[in-house]
């Protein structure tokens, strides 16, 4: 920039018109797109019979009742460590993938990439490939341009509504909610969520596209810190390609056909080297390979490479195989941590009980002196019945002295906890004046809670507070 022109403060987006490309990475990306979108749209509609008292939706986040259902697994709020464990696994998984395969998440699995791919597919169907779209952009407003634009936007909008719509089905019974959505009976928050997600899908997938990755997403910056010289990235072998030029007129293999640039959804030139915009979607590899096949040169001018191989390659030696870059200590450590937490979660899942018990002694007051001179303690006993059947529990205590136990409001020692509910029961323990516990600051008490039918039992420990003179 010359000094006499005023600096530009704001810059319009340079439109990107990715060209159609075919090849192995494109095929892989299409199948991943079909699988991920398929999972996203279909999951809420899978039914799973849990009996009469529980929802029959396989995957359901029931915020109102604070329950998470995943096929045969039901998670209660106090078991949030499962969710925390999954989040830690997701974090470590991203470390692992980034360290081993670079920005593979960005290029293949990120929703922004997947939906942008889908939107681009629609765009190509309606408006044509790269050249036709450039021409359309430059063309004056005409009935044809309006028709093409409107039909493209309409198609995007349908996908966007379906995207936002699918999201809310994870939070309520899908068939009921679908019916309510169409009859206007659904909750305002459902319509609001759909509207928000429709808007973000439409704008992010249709218009913002690569700008989301470049300007909004923090992940490219974090990833830059987690990659090392062994991480796989998409790179241009400039020692093989340069000097570039028309076929037969330059020594390098690159014929400057711009195929890699034309297919890039991020609007960059991979031959300029690694750039923060690059999501390693590998479409330039497909484009370049196809061109190399045509001109009879070997594939791999643009390829997945690791930085450490560059000196050998420049010297004309074969690079290390890609698996050798993946199989290294750092990745094994990540994998070990990741798998360890996974195994821990699975074990925790299988050993957990299907009812849970907690006991809270009254703190204010800690004890009550009674007219016979004895002392009474009160406890809040909470039993969570995490099954779909009503269950009956027997409550007893174990102490050194024969303290008496009683449940508030009943003379029985059995209580029924309804299916899939928690029940609070006030429990009293009495110590007669002759017992040491009535005069001791703190005496251990063990509560036993036993399922009358199955015999399964759990204990919780607490204390009995007496009055010390």
């Amino acid at each position, binding site marked *: *920039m010359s000094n006499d022109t005023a*600096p*530009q*403060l*704001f*810059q*319009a*987006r*340079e*439109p*990107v*018109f990715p060209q159609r490309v075919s090849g192995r990475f494109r095929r892989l990306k299409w199948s991943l797109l079909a699988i991920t979108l398929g999972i996203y749209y279909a999951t809420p509609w899978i039914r799973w019979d849990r009996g009469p008292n529980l929802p029959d939706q396989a995957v359901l986040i029931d915020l109102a009742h604070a329950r998470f259902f995943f096929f045969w697994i039901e998670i209660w709020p106090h078991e949030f460590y499962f969710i925390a464990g999954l989040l830690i696994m997701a974090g470590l998984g991203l470390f692992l993938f980034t360290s081993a395969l670079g920005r593979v998440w960005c290029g293949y699995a990120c929703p922004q990439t997947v939906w942008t791919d889908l939107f681009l597919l629609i765009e190509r169907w309606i408006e044509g490939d790269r050249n036709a779209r*450039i021409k359309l952009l430059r063309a004056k407003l005409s009935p044809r341009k309006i028709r093409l634009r409107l039909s493209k936007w309409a198609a995007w909008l349908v996908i966007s509504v379906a995207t936002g719509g699918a999201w809310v089905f994870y939070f309520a019974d899908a068939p009921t909610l679908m019916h309510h959505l169409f009859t206007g009976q659904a909750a305002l928050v459902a319509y609001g969520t759909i509207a928000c997600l429709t808007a973000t899908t439409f704008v992010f997938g249709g218009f*913002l596209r690569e*700008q989301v990755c470049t*300007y909004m997403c923090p992940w490219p910056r974090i990833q830059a810190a987690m990659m090392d010289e062994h991480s796989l990235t998409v790179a241009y072998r400039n020692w093989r390609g340069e000097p570039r030029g028309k076929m037969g007129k330059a020594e390098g293999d690159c014929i400057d056909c*711009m195929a890699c*640039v*034309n297919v890039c959804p991020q*609007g*960059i*030139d991979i031959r*300029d080297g690694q750039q923060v915009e690059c999501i390693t979607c590998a479409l330039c590899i497909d484009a370049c390979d196809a061109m190399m096949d045509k001109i009879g040169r070997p594939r791999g001018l643009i390829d997945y490479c690791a930085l450490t191989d560059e000196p050998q390659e420049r010297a004309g030696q074969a690079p290390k195989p890609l698996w050798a870059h993946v199989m290294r200590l750092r990745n094994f450590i990540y994998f070990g941590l990741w798998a360890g937490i996974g195994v821990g979660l699975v074990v925790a899942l299988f050993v957990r009980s299907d009812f849970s018990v907690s006991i809270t002694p*009254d*703190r*204010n*007051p800690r004890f*009550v*002196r*009674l*007219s*016979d*001179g004895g002392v*009474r303690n*009160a406890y809040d006993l909470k039993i969570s019945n995490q099954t779909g059947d009503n269950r009956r529990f027997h409550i007893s205590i174990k102490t050194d002295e024969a303290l008496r136990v009683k449940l*508030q*409001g009943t003379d029985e020692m059995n209580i029924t906890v309804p299916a899939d509910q928690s029940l609070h029961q*006030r429990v*009293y323990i009495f110590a007669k*004046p002759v017992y040491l516990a009535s005069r001791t600051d703190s005496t251990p008490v063990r509560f036993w809670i036993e399922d009358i039918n199955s015999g399964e039992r759990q204990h919780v420990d607490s204390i009995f507070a007496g009055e010390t003179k």
Partner: protein
Amino acid sequence: MSKKHKMADEDYPTTGHEWDGIREYDKPMPRWWLWTFFATIIFSLAYVIAYPAVPLIKGATPGLLGYSSRAQLQRSLDSVALENAEIEQLLLATPLENIAKNPSLVRYASAGGGAVFRTYCAQCHGAGAQGATGYPNLQDDDWLWGGDLAALEQTIQHGIRSDADEDTRYSEMPKFGEFLEEAQIEQLVEYLRQISGQDYLAETSANAEVLFADNCAACHGQNGEGNHEQGAPNLKDALWLYGGDRDALRHSIANARFGVMPAWNTRITPAQIRQVTFYVHQLGGGE
């Protein structure tokens, strides 16, 4: 389009800052960012017009939508009242002793009663209803005026020795310091310690039985077992509202003591009285 038309990085000016040889480009912001900035300005203008915004001496500009946080609070209070109207009716229509049979009433009464208790009762009876000297402990099993549901409701409605209520519970213990000799009071003190199971001077209490029968038994009962009708405490048990040591007993006999509790029927609603009645009853001492 390709970056061919773009400026090369070297052509961009820098901000002039330099750290360790690292310089910062002065590149243009994306234009959508500028639009977002303008959009927030437009939003804030619209917000100022639509909602209360500009502070004035009294309140603020009302805004076109007429929103007020007080009105919103009132609406949500009203909607809670509306939601609870049905169960409140049921609570008032259900005989006290049958409340415990209906789980939803139990939930409503004990939760609401807890809130009422902490608002109106905790000042004297303590947050945990454990009481204090002179203020009865509502958790224990010793009741002056009766601890069944009906007696509790009566007490809460009309209070104890409450000037404003004709149906209030009323009794007054004479100041025996005006009738009895000091030695007689000492005899009674030791007698009370004897019947309540504390250590006592056998010589002093030996002749107090007649004294007790003449002066105390009318209200406190032949054996000192107390009387709910009079609000006369049980003197045999281990609990003393004003203390069971000799000084406290001496003071109680000579000067008489009695507490006052306001009538609540003019201050809280009948439903609230029912709720707090049930709450107190289920604390553990209810008869």
